[in-house]
Structures are given as structure tokens and as C-alpha cells.
């Protein structure tokens, strides 16, 4: 039985409504059943469509299902319709599945410390997020994508600020919202641009029209795509709009895993890939995308090396990996970018959930300098974390290796040696900081307090089971997209996704595959970079207890301070943007509002009061005075009328 497409987002919406309105009174058990059940049913509904879609092979059709007319104003005719094509199918497959796993994990993670109301609120938001994310990927028009786009932004805000009684969490939520808003503004402008160019906002119309007449639209598309990409930069935390994502770790850890690693932050990559026809007509913008992506990748990786908060390391790692994905989009390797989105969802969700398990065991401690030796106490967490770390480091044959290699090969193939070199160096850096994290957390001896040591325990099955599933996916997830050197038909992922790359009229799809020798060479280089990073990290942090890095930090205090303090980007924004705006707001308040607007109003009121103070003496209260005035007035009127004639 195949579910209609609209039902897939509708199920989590129903879960949100039930938990949001009734959850407080129904208790944790019921909330768990509804919340996890909604995610599970949505997953089943999604796979009832995905499995036939996957097995249909080459003959599969893009399905567009319309519910009804939504907006019909002037030249704009918009239907409420959903679309299932390879791209949305891919997103759908891991959003529902990973989302479901994280719902399960959350029942364990959130069980202890929350009230019934907080627990219900948490699951309501989580379901609402799932709804918005599914609308985002399934929508058939830019407007519907925007609805989902704003929806996930809202849920992100709500869940970052979940612990709203802690000031830093509330501030982090606000920051995420404001920074995202800047990006959203770009997205809106891009959307307006698309509408003015094509007179439509439906994917099928816009993209086919652009592909048919590339010469006509190409010049204007540079600007339109730039605007769209600014939207993607906000949502996917690219420099200079990356500042919100590390702060977003103030939310509960499963939220970090679901929203701020696996799904929402990849929405930008999804959007750029969805609009690949437009972007391919705007080569300058593509170069910009690639440049921003590469810079973000290395920038965030450098910061991650010096962070000591387990979630901050992972957050900067996420920023860095998102940079990779945009690098892929920018060099035209959209398939590789989406491939990395998928594998990243597996291993990064696993890493975040693993870190959640660690934090859970440590009683809320997040500083890796106070951990160590957790290997024996949390075996399941350790092994799954290690597998995911190997995957993100790019060790074959794990998932991250294939996707990262595809991106690097794409950059090399497109003729961008500098971007390739940056990507390669970042790959080594990634391996280094991830193994630094693993060594400090799980290796060595325990450095925390005795109470914490006593408290250490493996997490319940509801938490370890998702870890195991995600770890398995981190291993096998990459096997669907083998590079060409492993045979003609190894890249089933690329073949599956290729229909989204619409052929552009007048441009040959000149795809010269790299010679096998070159490809082997590239694979060798990226593995070598990863292994170098791993060995260096193990040597410095596992064997040497971090004496070498400490010496290096001491010898270059300036550089180290720069890295620890995230290159002072927050401070820079504080000086350049936040404070001037605060000053402006205060000026508007104290001067414009209080002095000018209120002043004018008060002056007018005072004038009237003053006039009244004098005029009230006319009111003698004596009825005969009034009668006399009346008579005099009448006489005056008569004289006037008579005189006028």
C-alpha cells in the first residue's frame, strides 16, 4: 500500500498537535508513544513510497501530487503540491529514518530530568520539526520550500532555547534565529528574482524553462543564485553566517544530532542542489559557492582543533563538513555533495548521540579535559563513536571515505587545484581533531571528580540501539556510491540521482571520467591525509598526554588564542554589528521615541489643556448667562444673514 505524499508530513503534524495541546496532562508514557509513534508512522509512510520508487529502476517517474490550489493572485498560481523525485526521495529516506532513531534515543535521554510538561513540549517541537523538514524537502515549489524552511528555523529556535531558564540557551536560540533571518532574507530575494524571471515558482516550470533557454536567463541568474545561496549560507552555517551553529549546542543533545547535524543544516545544500540548473547557469556564483565552502571547511576545522567542549568540537566539525558539501556544489559535483549529506547524516548523528551518551554518563559534563578512560565504562558508546569517527575521517571502506573522496575528485576534475588542496588539508585536519576528541574522551585515565567516576554507566538500550544502527549505517552507507575505479556500475548513487541534473540546452554533458591511475592517486592522497591526521593525533594525545600540543600552544600564544577564541568572529560581530545596532536602538528609543514622538504628542496635549484652562471660565453655570449668550449669538447671526442679502 502506498501512502499519499501529503500524509508523510501530516503524521508528525498530528503528533505535534496531540502532544502540544494535551501532552502536559497525559504523562510521559503517552507522550513517548505519540511522539515516537508519529515519527515511526511517518517513516513507514515514507518507505511505503520509497521502496517502490527505488525498485522501479530506470523507468521511475517523478511523482507530483497536488492537494489543491493554494495561492492564486494576479500572475501567481500556486498549487499545494508535493514532489517525489530522486532528490526528495534521498532526503526523505534519511530524514524520516534518522529522525525516528533520534526520537527513540530522546525517550532515554530526556527521561530523567524533565517535568511532564517539559517532556511533552520537547516531543511536540521534535514532531513539528519533522513536519517542517518534510514539507521543505517534499514541496514542489519555492514557496512551499520556504514554508518548511521557516518552520525548521522556528523549531530550531524553540529547541535551542529548550532550557529557556538558562540565559545562555535563550541567547543562543535568539542568535540562531537572527542569523538565520539574514539568510532567509537572501532566500526571499532570490525567490522574488526567480518569480520575476520565470513568472512561476514551481520547480518543474522554472527549471525546464531555464534549461531550455540558458542564454536568456543566464546573466540575471548570477544575482538570483547569489541571493539564494545567501539563504543557504544562513541555514547551513557557512562563513560568515556560521556563528549560530556552535552556540546552538545549548539545546538538548538529540536536538543537536537531528537538527544541527543531520537534517536541518543540510537544507541549504538541498536547496542549492535542487536549483542546480539555475546555479549551473551562473558560473560566477558557482565559484563563489565553492570558495565559501572551501574556506568554511578549513576555517571551522582549524577552530575545532582547539575546542575543549565535546559538543563544540562536533559543531565546528559539522560546519566544516557543510563547507565540504558546498565545495562539491560549487565545483558542479552536486551528486557528491548530496552523497556527503547522506553519509554525514549517519555518522554525525551517531557522533552527536554518542556525545549525548557520554554527557549523560558524566552527569552533564561536556569538557573533554575532564573526561578520559571512558572506553571501559561505556563500551557500546565507545565502539560506535570510534566507527563514526573513522567514517568522518575518511578511512575506507567506511561511508565518509566514499563521499569525501567523491567531493575531492569532483574538485580536482573541475580544475580547481587550490580548492582540492584546501579540501585535502581539511580532510587531514578532520581526522586529527576527531581522533584528538576520541583520545581525550575515551583513552587515557579518568580526569573527572570521584563522584562522576562513581556515576559512570552505559546508557539504556533506547539510547545505545540508535547508536548501533547509525554506526552500521556509517559503515555501509557509502557502498552505494563506489568510485569508478571499482567498476562501471559501482556508483549506483550517482545513477539514481543523475535525473535531477537536467541537461541544459546547447551544453554537452561532456563528462570525461578521470583516468583510473589519477583516481587511484587521489584516493591514495586522501587516505594518506586522513591516516597522517589520525597518527599525529594518537601520538600527541593518546601516547603523549598532550604535551607536544601544549608546548606548541605555549610557544605561539597568539595563534592558540586565535583558535580557542574562534578567530574572534563573535567579538568582531559584537563590535561591528551588535553594539552599533544596540546604540541605534537606544538612540531611536531615547531620542526619537521619547524626545521627538512623545514630545510632539505631549506638547499637543499640553496646548489643548492650556486652552481649556482659560476657556472653562466661560462656563459660569448660570443659566441666564447662557441664555444671554444665546440671544447675542442669534442677533449676530441674524445681522449676518440680513447683511449678506
Amino acid at each position, binding site marked *: 500500500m502506498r501512502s499519499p505524499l501529503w500524509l508523510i508530513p501530516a503524521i508528525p503534524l498530528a503528533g505535534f498537535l496531540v502532544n502540544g495541546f494535551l501532552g502536559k496532562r497525559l504523562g510521559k508514557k503517552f507522550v513517548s508513544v505519540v511522539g515516537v509513534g508519529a515519527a515511526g508512522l511517518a517513516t513507514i509512510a515514507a518507505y511505503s513510497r520509497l521502496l517502490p520508487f527505488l525498485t522501479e529502476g530506470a523507468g521511475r517517474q517523478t511523482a507530483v501530487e497536488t492537494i489543491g490550489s493554494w495561492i492564486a493572485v494576479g500572475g501567481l498560481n500556486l498549487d499545494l503540491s508535493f514532489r517525489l523525485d530522486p532528490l526528495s526521495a534521498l532526503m526523505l529516506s534519511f530524514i524520516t529514518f534518522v529522525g525516528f532513531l533520534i526520537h527513540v534515543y530522546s525517550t532515554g535521554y530526556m527521561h530523567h530530568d524533565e517535568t511532564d510538561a517539559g517532556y511533552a513540549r520537547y516531543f511536540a517541537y521534535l514532531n513539528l520539526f519533522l513536519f517542517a523538514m518534510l514539507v521543505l524537502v517534499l514541496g514542489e515549489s519555492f514557496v512551499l520550500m520556504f514554508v518548511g524552511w521557516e518552520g525548521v528555523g522556528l523549531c530550531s529556535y524553540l529547541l535551542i532555547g529548550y532550557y529557556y531558564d538558562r540565559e545562555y540557551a535563550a541567547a543562543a536560540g535568539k542568535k540562531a534565529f537572527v542569523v538565520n533571518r539574514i539568510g532567509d532574507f537572501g532566500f526571499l530575494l532570490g525567490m522574488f528574482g526567480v518569480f520575476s524571471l520565470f513568472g512561476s515558482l514551481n520547480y518543474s516550470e522554472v527549471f525546464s524553462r531555464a534549461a531550455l533557454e540558458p542564454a536568456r536567463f543566464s546573466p540575471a541568474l548570477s544575482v538570483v543564485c547569489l541571493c539564494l545561496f545567501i539563504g543557504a549560507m544562513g541555514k547551513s552555517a557557512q562563513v560568515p553566517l556560521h556563528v549560530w551553529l556552535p552556540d546552538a549546542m545549548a539545546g538538548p543533545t538529540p536536538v543537536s544530532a537531528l537538527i544541527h547535524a543531520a537534517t536541518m543544516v543540510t537544507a541549504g545544500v538541498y536547496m542549492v542542489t535542487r536549483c542546480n540548473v539555475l546555479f549551473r547557469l551562473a558560473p560566477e556564483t558557482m565559484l563563489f559557492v565553492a570558495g565559501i565552502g572551501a574556506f568554511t571547511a578549513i576555517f571551522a576545522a582549524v577552530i575545532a582543533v582547539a575546542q575543549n567542549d565535546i559538543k563544540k568540537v562536533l559543531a565546528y566539525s559539522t560546519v566544516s563538513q557543510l563547507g565540504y558539501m558546498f565545495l562539491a556544489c560549487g565545483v558542479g559535483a552536486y551528486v557528491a555533495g548530496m552523497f556527503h549529506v547522506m553519509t554525514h547524516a549517519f555518522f554525525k548523528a551517531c557522533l552527536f548521540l554518542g556525545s549525548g551518551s557520554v554527557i549523560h554518563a558524566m552527569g552533564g559534563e561536556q569538557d573533554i579535559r575532564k573526561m578520559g578512560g571512558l572506553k571501559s565504562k561505556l563500551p557500546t558508546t565507545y565502539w560506535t563513536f570510534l566507527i563514526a569517527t573513522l567514517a568522518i575521517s575518511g578511512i575506507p571502506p567506511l561511508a565518509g571515505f566514499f563521499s569525501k573522496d567523491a567531493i575531492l575528485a569532483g574538485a580536482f576534475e573541475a580544475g580547481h587545484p587550490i580548492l582540492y588542496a584546501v579540501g585535502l588539508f581539511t580532510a587531514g585536519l578532520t581526522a586529527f581533531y576527531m581522533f584528538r576528541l576520541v583520545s581525550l574522551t575515551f583513552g587515557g585515565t579518568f580526569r573527572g571528580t570521584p563522584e562522576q567516576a562513581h556515576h559512570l554507566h552505559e546508557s539504556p538500550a533506547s539510547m545505545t540501539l540508535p547508536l548501533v544502527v547509525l554506526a552500521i549505517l556509517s559503515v555501509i552507507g557509502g557502498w552505494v556510491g563506489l568510485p569508478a575505479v571499482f567498476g562501471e556500475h559501482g556508483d549506483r548513487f550517482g545513477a539514481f540521482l543523475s535525473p535531477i541534473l537536467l541537461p541544459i540546452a546547447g551544453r554537452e554533458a561532456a563528462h570525461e571520467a578521470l583516468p583510473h591511475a589519477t583516481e587511484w592517486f587521489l584516493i591514495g592522497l586522501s587516505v594518506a591525509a586522513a591516516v597522517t591526521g589520525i597518527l599525529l593525533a594518537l601520538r600527541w594525545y593518546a601516547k603523549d598526554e598532550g604535551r607536544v600540543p601544549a608546548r606548541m600552544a605555549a610557544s605561539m600564544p597568539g595563534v592558540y588564542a586565535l583558535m580557542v577564541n574562534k578567530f574572534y568572529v563573535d567579538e568582531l560581530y559584537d563590535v561591528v554589528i551588535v553594539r552599533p545596532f544596540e546604540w541605534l536602538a537606544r538612540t531611536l528609543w531615547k531620542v526619537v521615541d521619547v524626545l521627538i514622538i512623545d514630545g510632539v504628542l505631549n506638547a499637543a496635549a499640553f496646548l489643548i489643556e492650556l486652552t481649556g484652562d482659560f476657556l*472653562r*471660565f466661560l*462656563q*459660569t*453655570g*448660570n*443659566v*441666564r448667562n447662557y*441664555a*444671554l449668550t444665546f*440671544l447675542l449669538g442669534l442677533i449676530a447671526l441674524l445681522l449676518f444673514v440680513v447683511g449678506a442679502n
Partner: protein
Amino acid sequence: MIGSIPLSDVLLASAALFSIGIAGALLRRNAIQIFLSIELMMNAANLALIGYGAALGTAEGQIIVFFVIAIAAAEAAVGLAIFVALFRHTETIDVNKITLLKW
């Protein structure tokens, strides 16, 4: 017959009555006397209406007078009721002593 009296005489009489009414309304302090003065002014107007009606040979003037009389009766009832209420409240009907709306 009023027809034999010249219109100017009728109007003069009416004006005289009206002036007496005004003087009474402005100079008297007793509310009832003011009220009677106002009635006087109304009847001056009635007289003028009848005079004009007769001079023009039409019935409208007389018709309006009937209306005025009817309304004046109703008004008299309301006015006197107000005076009674006023008296109960202030124990006076001297309008100089009733200045509730003074600043």
C-alpha cells in the same frame, strides 16, 4: 376678523410680545417665570404665523400653530416635571442659586 387687521400691526404685536418674553427670560430668576416667558415668546411666534397665513390666504400658518401648541403642551409637562425634581433636590427654583455646571 383678523383679515381686517393690517399685517404690520399683527407683526408689531408679535414683536412686542416676543420682546417681553425675552426680557422676562433674561431678567427673571424664578425658573417658573422664565418658563412662562418662554411660553410667551412661543405664542408671539404663533401670532406671527397666523398673521402671515391670513395675509397670504393659506392654511399652512394655522396648521403649524396647531403643531406648536401641541408640542408646547408636551414641553410644559416635561419642563414642570424638571422643576419639581430640581426643587426636591435643591429646595429652590432660583436659577442664580443653581450653578452646578460652574467651572
